[in-house]
């Protein structure tokens, strides 16, 4: 027997917690097998993981074809497509997937704008870098104009590139970013109109917002592609991409209006009254007092709208534009690459997921940062 020491009451030194409640064992006991029902759930979950993950990994990685520059590496003994991912398909088609049928000699134009956008965005996102206002202004004003001239060409000695050659992830980004940038000012005006005291203005804004929010994007795209040409004077015909852009902008401006309205409602009444007491007129009150506070509040909402819009751009494929998803379908309907559609979908899912998940994490980070309390 080990020596038993006697302690005075209250003088016993603290003992370490029991081994069963700390470390890995404690964690497993608390989180996996805390009760019979919980143990049952754990067994069920492990079974699910076991039945789903190995076949998925086999399909994606272990059985997949990785190297090679043509479809021969993706065939089984009988000449059919292998029952796993065929990554050379992505490798061969990567340029069309990214840029559509944009002339290969002109791709540098897109890449330069990507670079500019990346630099400005990094400068905005990293807190230590100064001159944020100027970077933001650059992105909002000169940058779209630079992009327009770079992409379309036809001036400054650049080759003219028709919009029906645009495609892939490039087109997806163009539609999503144009939609969100153009819908921001329209959304602000609509939100102000909806909160206005003037009955006519309010009714028009409510009708506009609720109409576009109540119908699916696909019907708006159908409308913009078949009805807009009818609205124009005879002989005026405008581009298919532009029509889609107008439709997307109408759609997202209605959602943006509701987001901005949420921000406006969160501003205490005292701010409005204070501004009026100082003798500011409506424009100055909005520009100097209300909007700076409201827009800061709705940044996460704007990012969430952008995520939604980014996912919804896949619908333009239905009216015949070759966005990222449509380009992947087009690639896998090529006779040489039949049967690798699922690989294309896996790649598309990965790209969309990375974009959307990244943005939603950023928006949540912002929400936490802005939620400073008062």
């Amino acid at each position, binding site marked *: 027997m080990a020596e038993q020491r006697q302690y005075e009451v209250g003088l016993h030194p603290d003992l370490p917690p029991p081994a069963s409640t700390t470390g890995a064992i404690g964690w497993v006991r608390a989180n996996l097998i805390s009760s019979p029902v919980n143990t049952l759930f754990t067994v069920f979950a492990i079974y699910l*993981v076991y039945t789903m993950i190995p076949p998925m990994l086999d399909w994606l990685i272990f059985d997949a074809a990785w190297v090679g520059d043509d479809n021969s590496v993706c065939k089984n003994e009988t000449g059919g497509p292998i029952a796993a991912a065929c990554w050379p398909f992505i490798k061969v088609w990567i340029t069309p997937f990214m840029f559509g049928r944009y002339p290969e000699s002109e791709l540098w134009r897109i890449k330069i704008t990507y670079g500019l956008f990346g630099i400005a965005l990094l400068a905005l996102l990293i807190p230590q870098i100064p001159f944020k206002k100027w970077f933001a202004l650059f992105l909002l004003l000169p940058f779209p104009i630079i992009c327009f001239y770079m992409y379309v060409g036809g001036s400054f000695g650049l080759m003219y590139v028709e919009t029906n050659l645009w495609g892939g992830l490039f087109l997806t980004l163009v539609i999503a970013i144009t939609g969100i940038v153009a819908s921001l000012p329209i959304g602000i005006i609509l939100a102000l109109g909806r909160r206005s*005291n003037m009955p006519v203005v309010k009714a028009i804004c409510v009708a506009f917002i609720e109409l576009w929010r109540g119908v*699916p994007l*696909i019907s708006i795209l159908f409308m913009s592609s078949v009805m807009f040409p009818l609205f124009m004077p005879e002989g005026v015909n405008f581009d298919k991409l532009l029509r889609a852009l107008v439709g997307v902008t109408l759609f997202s401006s209605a959602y943006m209006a509701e987001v901005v309205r949420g921000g406006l409602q969160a501003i205490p009444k005292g701010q409005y009254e204070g501004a009026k007491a100082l003798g500011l007129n409506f424009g100055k009150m909005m520009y100097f007092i209300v909007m700076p506070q409201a827009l800061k509040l709705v940044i996460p909402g704007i990012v969430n709208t952008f995520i939604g819009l980014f996912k919804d751009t896949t619908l333009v494929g*239905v009216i015949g534009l070759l966005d990222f*998803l449509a380009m992947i379908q087009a690639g896998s309907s090529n006779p040489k690459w039949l049967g690798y559609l699922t690989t294309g979908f896996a790649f598309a899912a990965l790209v969309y*997921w990375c974009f959307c998940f990244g943005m939603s994490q950023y928006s949540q980070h912002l929400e936490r940062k802005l939620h400073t309390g008062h």
Partner: protein
Amino acid sequence: MAVETIEQDQLEPPKVKLINDPRARALFFQVLVLGSVLILGGIIVNNTMANLASQGIASGFGFLNTTAGFAIGYSPFVGYSEENTYGWALYVGMLNTLLVAFIGVIFATIIGFVMGVARLSKNWLIAKMALIYIEMMRNIPVLLQIFFWYFGVLRALPGPRQSLEFGANVFANNRGLFIPSPVPEDGFNVVVIALIIAIFACVMLAKWSKKRMELTGQPFPVFLTSLGILIALPALAAVVMGGPMSWDNPALKGFNFRGGAEIPPELVSLAFALALYTGGFIAEIVRAGISAVDKGQTEAAYALGIKPGVTLRMVVIPQALRVIIPPLTSQYLNLTKNSSLAAAIAYPDIVLVFAGTVLMQTGQAVEIIAITMGFYLIVSLLISTFMNWYNNKMSLVEL
């Protein structure tokens, strides 16, 4: 001390120039906005009329009575053939949209609630698996998911001869899902009447037990009793009438299955993808709703000796529902609107049939798009009215 008397006219608002009078400015501004909207509308109408006239396209809704002359692949509720009118084709498209939206809403709700509760599970593995599910569904475009289920899974199934069999005469192949369909025989209406009586009895039982609960505090196992009544009464009627129902089983004849009910792969993949996608969003709403209920509520319920299951059902969920219902409504609306993606995989919904085929044949873009948008607006309005009613019913009654 001389008290100055204020003249009556000094109390009136000071005279301002018309240009600085807020009411005059508001009136002017509204006239300006209304005028420009009307002018813009006028120009558009004018241009449209001129364009339609020059292209020789008729206007008006007379085309709805014209013979359609095209086939629709799937019409489970009403008969349709090429001799029917465009109006009838519109009706078929509407029913198909409502069908897929209804199935989607039911399954999305079930998936969402299960995943939302699983996300809050104390079991680490279950919670993390639910998290992965939610983040995957929410961040991948629904169209891509529909394509995946349609092209990647259902169209990749073997042909009719090598159909997958799930037992009980359920078959799946690349032509669709084949299930047995019930065929009512003589005396079947007695079973239907029994079912109606059973439902009525359940409603009465629920009312009675609620009253008793309020008076005496005695709970009554309403759910199990109702389930018993719902199964036993029709079953009894069926036995008494000698089994007045038979099953029409699908069987392989020639190149495809005959008999039974056929569910086309378009409907399966559309409903499945919509339910999974929206389910991810609903799960997040349910999680947020349950987290919004103060922890003290659960602790108080436990302190009173209420069992965990009953606590969840009677204490937590009723309070969480108030937070859940408004965003849930907008998810239902989103699902209904997303059902229009049917057009991408050729499921004959209103967009594909009406805004697609009929528009192509008649060219009457304005009327057709207006009817399509009007349909979605009305459906949205009905769903939000119903959910508002439900929300009012569930909302906190403060005395």
